[in-house]
Structure formats: C-alpha cells, structure tokens
C-alpha cells in the first residue's frame, strides 16, 4: 500500500508531533509514504479571504504536482484537506474558473486535469486502510480508557469524506477499535477558534475552554483530535487555565496519529505520556497489562 503525503506547513512546525506519529504508524501499517516533492502552502482560510485566484492556484499547484504520481493524496491537516478538495470541486463544477487556474499554473509550467483523489488521514484510515488492519497491529489496547473524540470543525463539514455531517462517527469507531470507550459530548464538532488564537486570543481561548469543560463534564481520560491546530489550541487554552486555578484537571490532548501509536508501541507510549502529562505517567492504568496480539 502506498500513498502520497501532503504535510502542510504546520506539520513541519507546530504540529511536528503529528507528523512523527503519522510516519510511525504508517510503518506499522505497512503503508509506504512518499512525501509530495516540492509541495507548497495550501492557502488555507487566509488567502481565500483575500484573493480567490491565488488561493485556488497555490492549492492546485500541489494537485498538479501530485497528478503524475497517480496515488491517493493524504493530508493530516483538515484545513489543507478542505483547500485541496475545494479545487477538485471547482474542476468538477466550474470549468471557467478551472481554465483560469490552469492559466496561472501554466505560467509556472504546470497543468492540472482534476484527477487527484484527496483524503484526510482519518478518512484514509477508515476507507482505505480499514479498522481490521489497524486492529491487527494493536499490541497495547486502550483497555476501557474513556476517550473524547473531538472532531474539530473542518473535517466534519460539507466537504467531509463520507462521515455523517451532523453526528460524525469515524473517530468514535476508531477509538472503539483501539480498545477505548468513546465518550459522547455535545461540542465534539464545535470550532476551537482556529486562527483566532493569534488574532483574537481571548475569544479563541474561551471557545476552547467551553469545549474542555464539556469534555471534563463527560468524564474523559484522554482527548483525541484529527486536527493539529485544534490540538495546539486546546493545549494552550488548557495550559492557561492550569496555571491559574485548577492544576492537571484537563485530560491529555492527543492527535489522531499519537493515539494510534500509543496502542502500537509501548516505548513511545511511555515517552508520550511522560511528556504530555507527567501525572498520568505515574498512573500506569493507560494500557494496564497490554497483551501482544
């Protein structure tokens, strides 16, 4: 099994741990990962707010580069996924704009035909890799740990790949497969504030706290999210509150790949939990007596 990997800018910086864990679980699952050669920024919500042509062109350049490889393009970043997917929709529905995008691409010596299939990592794991295969690699199941599936906003929305828009299920199913108990909570696909964490920090932090409160109320031991930015935002909001009043009250916040890696590899499990949550490390319950399958 082989896939083309589009990291997106944040996977190389703020979400570095997401990339590391993704590459690790890919090795366990025998997925050959080829990073897209010379990829560029997808444009995200910033550029489409200023210039549609530029936003679509920068996203389309990646697709044009990927086209000749004839492999599914996988990205762990929901925002990159939406940006790339949007271009595919334009190529299906708006030939006029598609032609203009190709004109811009042509200035850089590229052309896009609209044939690349883009997956978000979660969708790729559910549809192409399958839960059975993931299950077969688990050495240290989560053993009834209560895990809160925080979907975040963008991957559950109108362009989501096959999951239920109003009541997403993919993460819940994955948590079950990993041996954990998915916790239901109301704000599981509420927005964390996204880039407002930089431009309107108090607003975004308040949005994150609402989500964290809801998760604590539901009684979760771990939080997992398929989005690197959500993970960063929740972590920094949790950090803020922790320093003020209630220490260690928030459960550790993992990304999708980290959670899977936890169940695959014990060495990493220890290291992670120690780093993410010193207190949880002492409480060795996380995969109590995990047995090799």
């Amino acid at each position, binding site marked *: 099994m082989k896939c083309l990997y589009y990291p997106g800018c944040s996977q190389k910086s703020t979400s570095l741990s997401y990339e590391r864990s993704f590459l690790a679980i890919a090795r366990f699952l025998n997925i050959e990962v080829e990073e897209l050669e010379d990829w560029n920024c997808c444009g995200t919500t910033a550029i489409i*707010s200023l210039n549609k042509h530029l936003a679509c062109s*920068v996203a389309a350049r990646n697709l044009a580069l990927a086209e000749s490889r004839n492999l599914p393009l996988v990205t762990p970043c929901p925002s990159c996924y939406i940006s790339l997917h949007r271009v595919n929709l334009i190529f299906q529905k708006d030939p006029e*704009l598609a032609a203009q995008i190709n004109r811009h691409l042509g200035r850089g010596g590229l052309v896009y035909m609209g044939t690349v299939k883009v997956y978000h990592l979660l969708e790729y794991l559910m549809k192409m890799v399958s839960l059975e295969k993931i299950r077969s690699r688990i050495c240290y199941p989560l053993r009834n740990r209560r895990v809160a599936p925080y979907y975040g906003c963008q991957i559950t929305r109108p362009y989501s790949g096959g999951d239920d828009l109003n009541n997403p299920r993919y993460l819940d199913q994955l948590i079950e497969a990993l041996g954990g108990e998915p916790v239901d909570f109301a704000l599981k696909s509420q927005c964390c504030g996204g880039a407002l964490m930089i431009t309107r920090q108090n*607003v975004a932090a308040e949005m994150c706290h609402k989500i964290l409160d809801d998760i604590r109320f539901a009684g979760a031991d771990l939080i997992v999210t398929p989005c690197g930015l959500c993970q960063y935002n929740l972590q920094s909001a949790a950090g803020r509150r922790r320093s003020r009043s209630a220490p260690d009250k928030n459960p550790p916040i993992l990304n999708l790949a980290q959670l899977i890696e936890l169940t695959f590899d014990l060495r990493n499990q220890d290291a992670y939990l120690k780093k993410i949550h010193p207190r949880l490390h002492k409480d060795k319950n996380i995969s109590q007596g995990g047995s090799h399958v």
Partner: protein
Amino acid sequence: MNSTLEKKIVVDESLDNHFLRTIANTPEGERILSCLQCGTCSATCPLSGILEYTPRHLFALIRAGQKSTVLSSNTIWICSSCYQCIVDCPAQIKITDIMYRLKRMSMDTRLATRKVDIRRFYHLFEKSVVKYGRSHELGLITRYLLLRHPLQMLKQLPLGIKMILNGYLKIFPHKIRDLTSFRRMAHSALKSKEETP
C-alpha cells in the same frame, strides 16, 4: 424633524438595490435568494456573541441593499470558517463561502473595517506564502504580534522560546525548490481579478 429627514436621505443614497442580485450571481451565492431568515445560522454560529451582525442579520442587510454596512462590518472578518452554518442551513446556502466573497468585496471596495486587524494577519500570511512558497509561522506571528499586539507578544515569549528549542517553530523559513515558477504563477493569479457580476 429636519435631522431625521437628512439621515434618511443619506441612508437612501448608500443603498445598493442590486447588492442582493450581485451576491446571488456569484458562484458562492447561488442559493442566497432562498434564505428564509429562520436564524439557524445565527443560533449555530460559535461566534455570534461577538459579531456586529449575526449571519441572519447580515443576510437581512444584504437584502435591504445595505452594501456599505455589510462590507464594513466585523462579522465577515471574525468568521472563523468552521462551516457549521452551511451544515445546518435548511436552504443550503453556502454561508461560509459567501463570507469569503464578502471579505474579498470589502477589500476591493476599500470598505473593510479598520477595527478588526484580522485582515492584516491574512495579508502577512499571503506575503509569506508568495515569498517562500510556504508559510513561515514564526516570522508571521512575530511580525503580526509585534505590529499589532506587542503586549501579547511579551506574554507569548516564554512559550515561543520553548517551542523554538523543541523544534516546533523554525527560525528560518523553508523555501520551496522551484520558487521562480511558483512566484510566476502567484503573480499571474494576483493580477487577475475575479469577475463581479
């Protein structure tokens, strides 16, 4: 009495009776005419509390032709593009995409509000991408916070240094290999305006 009359004339002058039509003719706004004014968007928006006009109110203003009020509101810039309203809208209006469109229109017409500096962040982001091919987070955040929120910058400093030491923020930007042709493409895209119907 006189002043009320004057005010009315000013408001009338600023009306654009074709504004709704204009939006309806864009690819994003194709379903805007079927808006029921039901308010689901406003109820579902996680940011309604800090918006000048909630989405429902904004759509009512568009209908009323209040172009300058709409394009200079903070609503369009605060929208965090979470797409919840699109999922919930019973008329399947692509609200988030219309917000993007309104942002671009507010830039083109120079009506964008100066009270919200989010667009400055977007501009810095765009610059960074055109320059390097990828966004350089450290440079971007430093530049934005230094210029706009120096106090917040100071508060974030310890976290920033920790992230740099752990490799989570790169000091130097990564440039893509084929930057020349990338920039040629970007400048071609920057020059062409999307058509306004």
